[in-house]
């Protein structure tokens, strides 16, 4: 998972800057300080509260989003570094009100309890399939290891990933 703290563009100062982020396909202009994380930009400045904060330290995966289709921890990514990149959040996953197959599988397999880790788990799980990292249980274990679930719905999350993988493979 991409988790490094992105370097600050040198020319920017500490005060609020105008930035335009592309979130779920839409340009979203905003004014933020360079130190604002992508997670806080989404949640506090753009009203997209679907991505969750479980630690703000890159250790739980609750904030997982995609930047240019690749998984990223939004709490460790500075929002200003996302200019010119496509950010996708849980809100952008179910286009047109249709549940994404992974969301449907999460219901079917009872893959969560409190649901707090769920947006991050789903963003990770969908990316996992795209990355080709869900071939077997060992891979799922390894490549989903950054997403903690305190309710420990792990076996059912794995079942949901398997179900989506197998359905896609069978087509």
């Amino acid at each position: 998972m991409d988790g490094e703290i992105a370097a600050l563009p040198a020319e920017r100062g500490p005060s609020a800057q105008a930035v335009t982020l592309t979130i779920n396909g839409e340009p979203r202009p905003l004014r933020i300080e360079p130190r604002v994380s992508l997670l806080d930009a989404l949640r506090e400045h753009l009203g997209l509260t679907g991505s969750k904060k479980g630690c703000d330290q890159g250790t739980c995966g609750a904030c997982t989003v995609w930047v240019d289709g690749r998984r990223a921890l939004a709490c460790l990514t500075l929002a200003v570094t996302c200019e010119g990149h496509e950010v996708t959040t849980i809100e952008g996953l179910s286009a047109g009100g249709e549940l994404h197959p992974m969301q449907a599988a999460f219901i079917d397999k009872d893959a969560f309890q409190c649901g707090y880790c769920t947006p991050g788990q789903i963003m990770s799980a969908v990316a996992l399939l795209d990355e080709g990292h869900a071939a077997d249980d060992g891979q799922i274990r390894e490549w989903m290891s950054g997403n903690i679930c305190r309710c420990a719905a792990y076996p059912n999350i794995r079942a949901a990933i398997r179900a989506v993988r197998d359905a896609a493979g069978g087509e």
Partner: protein
Amino acid sequence: MIGKPLRRVEDLPLLLGTGRFAADISLPGQAHLRVVRSPVPHGMLRGVDGRKALSMPGVIGVWSAADLDLGPIGFRMVAFPGMLPYRQPVLAAERVRYVGEPVAIVLADDPYRAEDAADLVELDIESLPPVLDQLQEPAQFDDQNDTEALLHEDGYGDVGAAFAAAPHVVELTVTVGRHTGVPLECRGALADYRPGAGTLDFYGAAKVPHQNRLLLAGLLGLPPQLVVLREAHVGGGFGVRGEVYPEDVLVCWASRLLGRPVKWIEDRNEHLLAANHSRDQVHRIRAAVLADGYITAIDDEFWLDQGAYVRTHAAAVPTLTASMLPGPYQIPAYRVRGHVRLTNKTPAGTYRAPGRYEGTFARERLIDAVASSLGKPAMEIRLSNFISPDQMPYARPMSALGTDLEYDSGDYALLVGKAQARFGLAELEHGLAARRALGEAVGMGCAFFVEKSGLGPYEAVRISVDQSGHIDIITGAGSMGQGFETVITQICAQELGVRPETIRVLHGQTDQIEHAMGAFASRLTVMAGSATLIAAQALREKALAAAARMLEASPRDLELSDGAVRVAGDPDTGISLAQISEALRPDQAARWGLEPSLTADGWHTTDHMCYPYGLHIAVVRVDAGTGQVIAERLLVAYDVGRAVNPMLVEGQIVGGAAQGLGGALLEEFRYDDAGHPQCTTFMDYLLPTRAEMPPVDVLITEDAPSPRNPLGVKGAGEGGTTAMGAAIAAAIDAALGVPLGVKELPVHPEAALRLAKAARRESTSEPGGA
């Protein structure tokens, strides 16, 4: 509908990212609160200087204890007057007692700025030596009190005589480390005091909103009806969330002071320092045993590290530890002494299976010790000491959470037999023995336990049907994300013969219903579930009475099914619940002599708890090189009386088992010698991840329904956790071939390596020994 694995009704917002957790809620004009916390474990607070912070842009103000006119935070549960001096002040005044204790607050127009400014508040603290060990003799707490907040003594029978007469006495000392719930969502609170109206709305409530309303209203001097607590989505509770903490009081106080909304969102570092810790008990336990393995008495003394203050749970954990320790066994005589000792650590409270995880560890290790000293299998000792089904209901002359301790029903040996058959324990052990013979350190361990659930005294539910036939179920009991709404929906749908999609469950809003207890102690399905059934029955009666007028028939000839009332045997006469609701206008209802609205209330009250029980089995492997203990499989057999939704029961048990495993192998709040916490991030406080989570097989049985509620249910929230520590300990012993090797949880790799070394020494120096 009841007994079916209905898919959860509460899922959709959580999947779409439209859930509303505390941090997701904002109000116009809100200010952000940041808490300034003590950086030292113990000291005299000489001064708080907020001048630098005040000069920062966006800062609204800095306040400390001297500005507050609030008393300490009171108790919600089992309390003894002697514990009053140990309550936590909202902000530390003269003394700080743990790292993380709130000392001052900063309010700003932005959370980043509040945090920056809080760093600039200067604290003048004169350090004092900390107390860090509950076994140390009590020290001075303040001028009048020492650090032993409570010595809880209980028991029954002639323990002295039993020990004097016993051919065998088995004794050991065991420890359960300091760990806690750690929900993935940190805490959060948003208070909105409206000047003029004089009302206070509080978002981010959980678990026990009605009780917390009383506590908060009392502290703030407001009438309870003007204080409204609102539960949002809750990202896990586990006993920790939803108590009244200093931060909850502070947002309310600040909102009233400023006349604007005030929001506080905890960060992870704060959570690990500020939310209740739990466990951390040392037990010195002994048993008087007859030659055949029958235990005639248990004598236990334990020391609980309460941390720096006694919080809302007061004596709940020590009293539960004491009363539930004898568990499934007869134990004709029992004596227990529990020392609740204050130290300079984060205060402790309840965590999933409070007191039972610790007490079960002590008792089941004792059973293993008895077995090894008599050279018998531990399961044989268990079976010969079990309370038998014909002794039920079984009263132990003690009390638990203010109720008489009387087990309602159970057939413990039957569950053991079923588990052995279903899980194939004999073959499993056979396979492990073969692996051991090849040099692998693998083993299986078992532990049996009794849980308690369904604590009274009451829970209330109101059901109302609107003119479209949509049904609202209102309860004050909270949801912690455990599938509560689904369970309540199932019970109501079954009784009224309606589709689950027509039902919505509203919970945890104090202005919607007058009375509620809340979501703790595995009580929801028992209490709110029973109240739902009772309310649905009343609603059915009312629908039949109104339909009788509409159809000009006798209510006796009518039946309710598929959401409509019909004359029995005449399918063409159906009147829908929607039509009945419409017809029950106040004027028409008055003509019919009925109360208006298709609405009914239901209450379930009880003086007793229900007692589910279970068997935990763990299979572990110890890595000879690193000492790492790998759980290969966990098996749980649990009698839940009756499972309203087996899928959800299983989810609860698997989640509980993972937390039991965390406490056995990974999770521990460590402090250095100076009292500084060492585990303040997820890098140091290790939660079970996918990597540590083994497959969990669950056997749910319904052999002992509870006679104490109309559904026959018992709670399932904690039964995955209770004996997992004890089972894993026994499995490690078996893997290493050291009887009673594990006396301390969590078992770190170094400890496992030490045990392995001891085992090797033992086998080389005393062939055939042990």
